[in-house]
């Protein structure tokens, strides 16, 4: 589907731009990528009052066209490149009326690109409460653009905005803002002539940003560089002069169009909340309280829906075995596909709860305060206050968290954050921990109230956080950078979360998880089932012959025979052969070849571990399909010693291994995309695997 009109939403962060995007497009939206870069491109469609269909593009929030972080570079790129498939016919500037001056800076820059523009002025109610009276007609006349006052939060006046979009002029009518040519006399017209740019301000931006603009050819970029030398162009000085000129222009207009009443009372609401939430001691207590609540919720609230999903799959497996004819295809479907699917879908409740919390914390403005409180500590260990968001997000999944590190402007801070985020215990480790803890940690209470298993789980999370901080501190000394780190960040006023936004976020994340991770897990489950069910023909034939011999049939019952046969068959399957090949390497950690298979398959994604265990144990004892994986693992005996395989030492060693090992291909892939080099994912894979191996070795040998 393509629209009749392309409309780009541009605005500062925290202006309600995303809410407006959701209002305009509803569920009719999709997330893709801008060509060549990994910046999320959110697009959707909106039916206009004149019957046309507008394609709405939500560009990343930015304070100016001069990018400070990776995401922001896309804004100018899309607006300047007329050949870009996302280049808009119309720009809607979403501006916060309660913070008009700073919001208009971006407007004046965008206006000078000479693309038709409409202003959607949001949060007029807040501005009014703060004692600001804006003369919209006068402001609109002075800027030469149509201004529609909206309230995105309540969904008010969106129809008026749609009308403004539909009937917006096709040519730019906005008034000129500042005199651009005087900022770099001669240089601008020369770039205009040689690179064939018709707008002076676009030419000036080329001078500032040409190195990062993908649509300019290397020859063009080099030529701009030469012109800059010729006119001794100084980027920072020119930018400073431009910003001052723009604010002068804005102040002049605001002086005539906006009346401020004396100090208003209302802004102190946010202030009063801040006094509590960023209090010296109380602030941290509340922060850790919230984290604790999130953990409790992830476990407590998800229990019921997870059991429901598990039971559904048990029933499906059971019915499938009853209804479908026996054979290899049925086995593949049930033990391969269904087992794999249940492994994915069972995580949905936990992922939904975690993302609900994260999106509420961000939406209310609390996350910015956490960043503010933690910056000093984070800086000490080589991170940045803004690293808190990816690290907390890492509790859900490292993949979106590594992407969210883009908001960190400083390169070194960002790289270290990306390198340690996968150490944070993600939701894929959760089922592994839950399974192993219930196997090896007794179900008792400490001090009468704390469950022993719960404490064990919490220790794994503490271990992950401590490790992430420690590794970051080490890397601080290893990674060199000349760039100065800085932390200039808006603290938005507190607001109630917008539940529809929270709902949409959950929906998007769960969908991404089910489809992205699901594909991998189901594929691996199928491959694994094949590898575990078939083996080198000569060996398999020998087993068949051995168990059909008269001698065997006499000395064992049919049931015993069946169990022995299937376990020997697994041992001699392709998976078994591979598992046994790596057994010498993992034996010192307490792992046998069956665990070895799980380690290999879960290299693609950790959550495959449980599925692999399920597949291996359901292949090896065919009769007990209704048993849970846990029971099967508990019954597993070491064939040499007759002792249980999963002892306390093995369980803990395995948990520690999963805590550190880089068992996630998606994370490696995203780190490659984000750092644009294989160097960083390679280092990450190396250090994490080494850490995992030696930590497991230590744990196993201390406990065995």
């Amino acid at each position, binding site marked *: 589907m393509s629209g009749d009109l392309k409309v780009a939403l541009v605005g500062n962060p925290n202006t309600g731009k995303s809410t407006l995007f959701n209002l305009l497009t509803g569920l009719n939206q999709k997330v893709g990528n801008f060509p060549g870069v990994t910046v999320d491109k959110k697009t959707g469609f909106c039916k206009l009052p004149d019957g046309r269909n507008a394609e709405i593009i939500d560009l990343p929030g930015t304070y100016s066209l001069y990018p400070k972080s990776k995401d922001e570079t896309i804004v100018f790129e899309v607006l300047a490149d007329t050949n870009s498939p996302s280049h808009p016919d119309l720009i809607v500037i979403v501006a916060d009326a309660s*913070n008009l001056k700073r919001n208009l800076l971006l407007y004046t820059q965008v206006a000078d690109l000479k693309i038709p523009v409409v202003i959607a002025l949001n949060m007029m109610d807040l501005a009014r409460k703060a004692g600001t009276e804006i003369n919209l007609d006068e402001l609109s006349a002075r800027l030469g653009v149509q201004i529609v006052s909206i309230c995105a939060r309540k969904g008010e006046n969106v129809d008026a905005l749609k009308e403004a979009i539909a009937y917006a002029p096709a040519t730019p009518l906005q008034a000129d803002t500042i005199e651009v040519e005087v900022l770099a006399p001669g240089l601008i017209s020369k770039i205009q002539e040689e690179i064939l740019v018709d707008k002076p301000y676009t030419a000036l931006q080329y001078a500032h940003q040409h190195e990062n603009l993908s649509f300019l050819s290397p020859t063009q970029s080099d030529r701009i560089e030469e012109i800059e030398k010729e006119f001794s162009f100084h980027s920072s000085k020119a930018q400073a002069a431009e910003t*001052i000129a723009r604010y002068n222009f804005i102040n002049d207009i605001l002086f005539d169009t906006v009346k401020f009443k004396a100090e208003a009372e209302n802004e102190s609401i946010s202030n009063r909340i801040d006094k509590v939430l960023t209090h010296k001691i109380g602030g941290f207590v509340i922060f850790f309280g919230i984290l604790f609540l999130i953990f409790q919720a992830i476990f407590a609230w998800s229990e019921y829906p997870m059991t429901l999903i598990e039971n559904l799959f048990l029933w499906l497996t059971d019915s499938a075995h009853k209804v479908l004819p026996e054979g290899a295809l049925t086995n593949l479907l049930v033990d391969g596909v269904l087992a794999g699917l249940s492994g994915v879908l069972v995580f949905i409740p936990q992922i939904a709860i975690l993302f609900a919390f994260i999106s509420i914390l961000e939406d209310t403005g609390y996350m*910015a305060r956490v960043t503010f409180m933690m910056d000093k500590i984070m800086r000490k260990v080589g991170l940045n206050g803004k690293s808190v968001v990816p690290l907390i997000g890492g509790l859900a999944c490292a993949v979106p968290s590594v992407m969210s590190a883009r908001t960190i402007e400083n390169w070194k801070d960002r790289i270290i954050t990306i390198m340690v985020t996968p150490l944070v215990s993600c939701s894929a480790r959760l089922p592994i921990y839950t399974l192993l803890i219930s196997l090896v940690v007794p179900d008792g209470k400490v001090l009468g109230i704390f469950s022993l298993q719960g404490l064990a789980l919490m220790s794994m999370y503490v271990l992950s956080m401590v490790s992430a901080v420690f590794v970051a501190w080490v890397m601080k000394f290893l990674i060199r950078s000349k760039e100065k780190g800085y932390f200039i960040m808006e603290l938005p006023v507190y607001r109630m979360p917008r539940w529809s936004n929270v709902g949409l976020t959950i929906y998007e994340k769960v969908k991404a998880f089910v489809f992205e991770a699901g594909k991998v897990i189901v594929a691996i489950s199928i491959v694994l089932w094949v590898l575990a069910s078939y083996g080198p023909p000569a060996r398999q034939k020998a087993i068949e012959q051995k168990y059909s011999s008269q001698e065997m049939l006499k000395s064992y019952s049919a049931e015993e025979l069946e169990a022995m046969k299937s376990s020997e068959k697994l041992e001699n399957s392709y998976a078994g052969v591979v598992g046994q090949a790596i057994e010498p390497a993992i034996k010192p950690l307490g792992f046998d070849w069956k665990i070895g298979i799980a380690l290999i398959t879960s290299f693609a994604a950790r959550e495959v571990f449980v599925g692999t265990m399920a597949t291996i144990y359901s292949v090896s004892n065919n009769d007990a399909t209704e048993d849970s994986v846990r029971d099967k693992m508990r019954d597993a005996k070491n064939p040499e010693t007759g002792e249980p395989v999963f002892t306390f030492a093995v369980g803990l060693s395995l948990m520690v291994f999963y805590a550190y090992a880089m068992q996630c291909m998606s994370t490696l892939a995203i780190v490659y995309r984000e750092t644009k080099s294989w160097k960083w994912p390679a280092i990450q894979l190396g250090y994490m695997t080494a850490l995992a191996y030696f930590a497991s070795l230590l744990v196993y040998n201390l406990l065995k």
Partner: protein
Amino acid sequence: MKLSQLEAGQSGIIKEFTDLEMSVKLMEMGCLPGEPIVVERFAPLGDPMAIRVSGYQLSLRKNEASTIILH
């Protein structure tokens, strides 16, 4: 007087900057010469600080604040 030398609750008016790179970023965020600034609070560990400038709250580190000279 540098901005970083103010206590919570104190205010001042921006005169100039000592660091060009930093000034570009600060000015974009509304910290312009002539603009009044109020220090609202410090983070629990004493750094960064939160200031009110052109009608909103901005947080910045003390060493960044030390590049802002007040009248």
